[in-house]
């Protein structure tokens, strides 16, 4: 991310929420983003996914390079700005069709490339849909083609299924959970449909005296995965629509990578997509669609259960059937994480994921995120104001103050050798569990008003080492060690260039 500037145009003037923010996130690493309230942490997160409410906010300029594609391409053609005389307001003239095009392009990266966990799990989920429904929606959107392929390729009638079924009964008699799990997995593999294995596992998980009594239910589950002729036709047609959507994403990615419009293929795909939708319309008729979609909903339900299992929820089947109001904050945050990971993103933006939770629940969630990082290997941008959380999870830390990045360093380096006066102040103002008698230092003053930010270095009014030069010009980022850059005139290392 390079030189990102996001402004909010309000009646009081222009709030310069982000003013030249640059940092890198490497594949598979966790970058912590720290700062006080109102320093632009969340605005950064929303800018990366282009979720800034527009109006009033606008990303002014900058580039966000994601795997070589500039997500902000075409930005300068979306709006023009005219200052209103005698006020500090600015009139923004927006070309909404171009803004819409820019937003459309984001479907290429949202979910599958970059996904996000929001701060308030209670308000991020829709209260009127069940958990299963909401995770299923994300699954269909991002992995629809794979899901349909799986359904079409399933072999519930194969002779191996019969053999695996007997194995499952034998394992259920031993009452050994590991054996049951293994047998259920083998059952799913025999039917060439892993979700059937999950379903079988939850049928036999509870210790039953008589496993044969569950067999009719198991057979029923198998019967549900057999597709009728019309269901198969519906799925094939749906797959074609989804395939076009995937092509469209690739075209958008190409546009952003090559920084030029490739209107021809895009228009062709959009038209064909519309045509396919029209052709599938009659399947969408009331009473027909439900029956057609049945195999699909069954599949997404059990995949959602698998995802919930992955975020260590003890009773995933009940949770998947439930609604958001039935769950506690910690559970909801797990559901959010499961949903964000459903598309296997390459970058996960976690915007204060644990602020609304209690410490014991916070410890559970952090442990979960550490495990997921090891297992899935996604890069994480962890936004928080809690330096303790950062120390536990992050690899590198980026400290922000009033819309500027002031210091970036590897996590150990930052805590042992903080260079910027703001970072030093921040670190010495936390009450520490391990050093209780330490006198708490505090940073005098408070965060500046971003409509009239201080000139030069934005920290100079509160800085203990302020010099005359600090008032005049913004300090450049200088390199002060391996991967350690800082924006302060106290240090005069070589200037950092990308």
């Amino acid at each position, binding site marked *: 991310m390079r030189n990102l500037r996001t402004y909010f145009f309000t009646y009081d003037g222009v709030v310069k929420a982000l003013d030249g923010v640059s940092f890198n996130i490497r594949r598979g690493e966790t970058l912590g983003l720290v700062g006080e309230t109102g320093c632009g942490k969340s605005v950064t997160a929303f800018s990366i996914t282009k979720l800034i409410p527009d109006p009033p906010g606008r990303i002014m300029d900058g580039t966000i390079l994601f795997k070589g594609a500039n997500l902000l391409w075409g930005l300068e053609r979306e709006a023009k700005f005219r200052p209103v005389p005698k006020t500090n307001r600015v009139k923004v003239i927006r070309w909404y069709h171009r803004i819409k095009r820019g937003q459309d392009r984001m479907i290429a990266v949202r979910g599958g490339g970059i996904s996000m966990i929001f701060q308030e799990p209670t308000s991020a989920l829709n209260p009127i849909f069940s958990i299963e429904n909401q995770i299923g929606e994300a699954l269909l959107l991002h992995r629809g083609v794979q899901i349909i392929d799986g359904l079409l390729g399933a072999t519930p009638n194969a002779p191996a299924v019969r053999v695996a079924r007997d194995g499952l009964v034998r394992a259920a008699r031993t009452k050994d959970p590991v054996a049951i799990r293994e047998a259920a997995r083998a059952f799913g593999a025999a039917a060439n449909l892993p979700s059937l294995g999950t379903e079988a596992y939850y049928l036999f998980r509870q210790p039953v005296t008589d496993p044969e009594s569950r067999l009719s239910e198991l057979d029923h589950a198998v019967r549900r995965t057999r597709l009728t002729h019309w269901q198969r036709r519906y799925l094939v047609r749906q797959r074609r629509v989804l395939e076009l959507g995937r092509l469209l994403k690739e075209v958008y990615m190409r546009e952003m990578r090559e920084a030029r419009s490739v209107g021809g293929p895009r228009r062709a795909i959009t038209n064909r997509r519309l045509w396919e939708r029209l052709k599938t319309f009659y399947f969408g008729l009331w009473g027909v669609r439900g029956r057609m979609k049945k195999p699909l909903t069954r599949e997404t339900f059990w995949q959602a259960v698998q995802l919930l299992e992955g975020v260590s929820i003890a009773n995933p089947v009940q949770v998947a059937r439930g609604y958001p109001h039935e769950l506690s904050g910690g559970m909801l945050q797990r559901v959010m994480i499961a949903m964000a990971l459903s598309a296997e993103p390459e970058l996960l933006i976690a915007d204060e994921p644990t602020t609304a939770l209690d410490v014991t629940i916070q410890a559970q969630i952090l*442990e979960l995120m550490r495990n997921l990082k090891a297992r899935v290997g996604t890069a994480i941008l962890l936004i928080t104001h809690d330096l*303790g959380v950062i120390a536990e999870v992050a690899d590198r830390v980026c400290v922000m103050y009033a819309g500027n990045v002031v210091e970036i360093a590897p996590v*150990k380096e930052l805590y042992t050798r903080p260079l910027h006066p703001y970072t030093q102040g921040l670190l010495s103002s936390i009450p520490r569990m391990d050093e209780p008698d330490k006198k708490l*230092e505090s940073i005098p003053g408070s965060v500046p008003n971003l409509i009239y930010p201080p000139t030069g270095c934005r920290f100079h009014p509160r800085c203990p080492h302020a010099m005359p030069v600090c008032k005049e010009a913004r300090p450049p980022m200088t390199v002060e060690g391996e991967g350690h850059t800082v924006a302060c005139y106290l240090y005069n290392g070589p200037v950092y260039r990308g």
Partner: protein
Amino acid sequence: MQPGDAPLLLSVRNLRKYFPIRGGLFSSHIGDVRAVDGVSFDVHQGETVGLVGESGCGKTTVGRLLLRLIEPSSGHTFYRPPPDVETRLRAIYEALGPAHLALDANGQKLPPNADQLLRELSGIAQKYSLYRMSPRQLQKLRGKLQIVFQDPFSSLSPRMLVRDIVSEPLAIHHMGNARQRYQRVAELLQAVGLNPEHLWRFPHEFSGGQRQRIGIARALALRPDFIVLDEPTSALDVSVQAQILNILKKLQAEQDLAYLFISHHLSVVRSMSHRVVVMYLGKVVERAPTEELFNRPMHPYTQALLAAIPIPDPQLHRERILLRGDVPSPASPPPGCRFHTRCPAVMPVCSKVEPPLVPIRPGHFVACHLYPGPEMPPSASEAAPPAPLPVAS
């Protein structure tokens, strides 16, 4: 500071607050939310008592009960009982045992002279308990017991000048004339680190930290000797939080104030308090001097709580104690020990019998079946420290 040095200020005994749940036919009483269920502790003059626990464990309710902002279901808070009364109270409660509460008696019997003891107790309560005072007595006492609220954005009236906000308690208690009040307000603002020019501003012109200072100035106006600090820094940033904590410490040293510091943030509690009370689902699970509690936590819940705090030091690697599941609902708390559903060291007895709060070492009380009674004399206990808890990995 030793608890014995300073005179006793508040003595909380068996405090309970049940909020009724109404529903069903004719909105009849169908159950209780046991927000606070038998809480006891002492506050001495000039000391800070930390009150720790997760959200929904009844911390804030205790704070509001201590000021009688809400009426308790049962129990007493004695204000400044003289030493002889205090020893008598101790003896009465000792003799009565947990049986007179009749709720978690575990089959214990009342002593034969219970009637007489209860009568004596109510006699003392008439004189010293906050909940037996007449409105007029209480009005006098309100100046001595003050509170600073959690949210500085909603606890100050947006229509009043700072001067009016801070001088309102003085006016209510008829302290001095207008000129004296004005001077006192200016003094107070100085004490909390604001300028006299801030007198003529409205709350919306201030940042969160400055508003919290105004709230503190308002609480200090009547020279109280006890302030409930209900999560005073949880709405603030760390750098501002440090400013507020330093001001609170300075004021305590100058004016010999006692605080009840309510917080879920254990590291803040450690830096502020002399003694700490840990609550879980309306019950006190552990009570000890700060250093003792943080160096030798005894209750499994306290241990897990301490292990869960992220420490801002990437080089430190600790053993983690992860609690499974969530806090149960206080409307239907689990039987026996309320923590047994999440406890890593749970035993069969835990789900049947509720453990009493027993002293383990001087001043250190724990309610857990792992620690059935006082340890051996100090020399012996140091030679053989208690066996470490089995830790769930």
